[in-house]
């Protein structure tokens, strides 16, 4: 069965420090993976998707099929990055049900 694991519930860093939010997945095929972000008391919104190979707000994520990981990274954290981050498998062949990790709360201290 497909699964997404985010091992850290909370990640606390200081402004300017590097950030890495971990995401591991379990899926037998070739996965598509997304990162969603939820700022305080707001709706979830897409941050980035691996197939686009994009960098959004300084964040990047590389799919590592060997380690089955899709970690989210940013070299220099900003206070406005404080939010809840969810890793997700958005679409599986034959399945309409996205799979979300449990989320990691990132707090960036000034």
């Amino acid at each position, binding site marked *: 069965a497909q699964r997404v694991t985010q091992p850290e519930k909370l990640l606390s860093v200081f402004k300017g420090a590097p950030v890495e939010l971990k995401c591991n997945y379990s899926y037998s095929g070739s996965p598509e993976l997304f990162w969603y972000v939820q700022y305080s*008391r707001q*709706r979830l919104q897409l941050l980035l*998707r691996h197939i686009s190979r994009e960098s959004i707000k300084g964040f990047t994520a590389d799919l590592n099929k060997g380690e089955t990981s899709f970690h989210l990274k940013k070299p220099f954290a900003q206070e406005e990055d404080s939010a809840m981050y*969810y890793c997700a498998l958005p*679409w599986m062949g034959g399945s309409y049900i996205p799979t979300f990790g449990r989320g990691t709360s990132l707090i960036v201290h000034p």
Partner: protein
Amino acid sequence: NAGVTQTPKFRVLKTGQSMTLLCAQDMNHEYMYWYRQDPGMGLRLIHYSVGEGTTAKGEVPDGYNVSRLKKQNFLLGLESAAPSQTSVYFCASRALAESSYNEQFFGPGTRLTVL
């Protein structure tokens, strides 16, 4: 283009009361979903729909019912509210096409407290 909207934004219920949460989307999306969000539990899927007139159970369906009579609306009902249903409820929608670019679009959430 409002995207995904949810009504109401906040609600307080007493145990045993009933209510309906409304989700509406104006993007002509086929798929719609209801999630609940609880601290430490992330997003859990309650029910979902792959088109008008169809619904299916998700991970935590007990105590909830849904209806999708119109493509743009997805209703979540609580027949007899319990304190364990205190949560933030999010609705989401997604386009039909099997494309890896297809993200979910989320509503702003409904904060429900059951006393």
